[in-house]
């Protein structure tokens, strides 16, 4: 009984933090998404409506009939595609980088980890504006290519999904490198030596021993990049332009210019549900994989 009380006492601060910072806002959002929209933003308390969720998939035509509207689905698909691309690219760049870092002498490794985290020291907005300077027509990249004679016209990357992808890969790369690096650094070097000893060349030691042992880091990095990438707002807004709207911008718009709070909250909830489903699917697969055959 005493132990039980003690357990609850020790858990209380964590529970309180999670409660105040997570459950309360989420609950609030859930409620807002099921209320009627106020005439000039906000909501009308007490007037329930599921209009927001209907609006996600359907629109009312002139006869007030419901017709399927894939505009919002397309924005979701585009966001998922971009987040997936970003994850794949950061994996492709991040894994070799982390591998190289993990096999440096220990003293140099500390410095390298520090260098990887340097971008965190500058505000995300500032870093995105820096990319604008690089990518825009007549920007640093354009100018260099023109001077080198590699192109005669501005290449026009700015305000395309490519610009967003470049910006996202840049911003999220450390979130991929660090977990992979940590799992690679933990690998017992004798396991790699054992692989060589048994006749594995470098490629097979990589695929048969190093990669499987680094899997937790790869999965962790992928989650850390994919999930925030899905809801990214600043980078698509600044680099992607209006033609390729993302979920993050859409939600922000509903709370801002569109003055449709219930719809914004509903969009956020659909996004959350998608992320949770993806994570649960992964957890299930992982647990099944870890079980002894």
């Amino acid at each position, binding site marked *: 009984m005493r132990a039980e009380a003690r357990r609850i006492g020790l858990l209380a601060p964590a529970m309180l933090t999670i409660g105040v910072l997570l459950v309360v806002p989420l609950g609030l959002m859930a409620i807002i998404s099921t209320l009627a929209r106020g005439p000039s933003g906000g909501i009308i308390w007490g007037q329930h409506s599921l209009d927001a969720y209907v609006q996600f998939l359907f629109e009312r035509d002139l006869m007030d009939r419901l017709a399927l509207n894939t505009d919002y689905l397309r924005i979701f698909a585009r966001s998922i595609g971009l987040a997936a691309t970003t994850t794949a690219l950061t994996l492709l760049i991040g*894994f*070799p980088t982390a*591998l*190289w870092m993990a*096999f*440096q*002498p220990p003293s140099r490794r500390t410095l390298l980890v520090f260098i990887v985290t340097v971008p965190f020291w500058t505000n995300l907005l500032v870093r995105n504006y820096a990319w604008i300077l690089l990518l825009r027509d007549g920007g640093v990249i354009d100018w260099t290519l023109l001077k080198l004679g590699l192109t005669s016209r501005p290449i026009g990357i700015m305000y395309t999904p490519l610009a967003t992808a470049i910006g996202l890969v840049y911003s999220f790369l450390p979130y991929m490198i660090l977990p992979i690096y940590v799992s690679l650094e933990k690998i*017992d*070097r*004798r*396991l*790699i*030596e*054992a*692989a*060589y*000893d*048994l*006749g*594995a*060349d*470098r*490629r*097979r030691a*990589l695929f*048969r*021993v190093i990669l*499987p*042992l680094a899997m937790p880091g790869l999965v962790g990095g992928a989650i850390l990049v994919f999930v925030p990438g899905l809801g990214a707002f600043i980078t698509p807004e600044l680099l992607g332009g209006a033609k390729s709207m993302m979920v993050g911008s859409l939600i922000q718009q509903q709370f801002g210019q569109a003055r449709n709070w219930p719809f914004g909250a509903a969009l956020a909830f659909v996004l959350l549900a998608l992320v949770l489903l993806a994570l649960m699917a992964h957890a299930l697969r992982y647990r099944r994989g870890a079980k*002894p*055959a």
Partner: protein
Amino acid sequence: MSVELPRTMRASAAEARRPAEPPTPGRAGGEAARASRGAAAEVAVDCRGLVKSFAGGAVRALDGVSVAIKANEFFTLLGPSGCGKTTLLRLIAGFETQDAGSVAVYGQLLDGLPPFRRPVNTVFQSYAVFPHLTVEENIAFGLEMQRRSRREIDARVAEMLALVKLEGMEKRKPAQLSGGQQQRVALARALATAPRVLLLDEPLSALDLKLRTDMQLELKRLQAEVGITFVFVTHDQHEALTMSDRIAVMNRGKILQIGTPEEIYERPAARFVADFIGETNLLPATRIGERRFRLASGEELETAEPGAAGEALTLAIRPERASLAPPGDPGLAGIVEQIVYEGTDTTYHVLIAGGLRLRLREQNREGSRPRVGTGERVAVALPAAAIRVLAE
């Protein structure tokens, strides 16, 4: 995608780009550089003048080591921690590159070959069993690297499982095994590809005493069964004496003596060897004749052989080879300081002239009891044939 290797592998990595050579054990490479060392058929591992320094020369781990290990022998490297045993194994396996000297296995020079092209396998001190693979996947690893057929692999894995008595555990992960079982997996994994030489780095040091004694016998049995040359590293002299065909005693990066367990124990060639293997009484002495020596106390001793050259020497005698005699008998006069009953034996600590202490050991037989008490005067008889003359 460029992949960086651990530092220790880098030297060999350059070699990996050479045209492939058949990794088949025993087939010496065709190139002139890999020329065979002539008719050295019965020598399995031939190390010559190996030197290896670490930390930019600050640590000399190996200081000119030469040793010829014979085919199918159980050869042990014995020495205190830090004497260079692991370094020697790593040079043979190819994990490190020597500063000078050469390594040949069955006449094939291995210098510059990466580990995955050497006909030797290693059992690591910490097992280094792959944690993400099952027991059978671990054992199959080397065979898969050799691209053997599935049928061949399955048959060989089953054979290995039986050899190390792990049948029924093939689907388990290493985390579900005890230390001793993991040890067996490491052994089976290394033996599966039938390497010509197996290197074992203190494979038993992490096991508890009972398991260790069992595994000592097991390893001996295995070695006899598979007929592979074993190069076994240990810092445990008892283990070395009971398991080995021959032993190399190492200290500070040098081999001090190579011999059978009996030679090493009975006729140590150096003071360090006498002291490290078993118990020994060491007496400083000066030579006064070819086989006569004078101790600091002025007493004189006769030996059976002249032993090491020089004037100032050390006489070594095992506690069980000296015996107690009544005072006045030939030998060194002394006083019994302490009597320690040890079950099978009794050890007497005797103070002799010059302030030196000798240990004598007598086996306890039925009905025997200490013939003397503490404080009594005795003579310590030292048979001439039992005294070794060693350089200071």
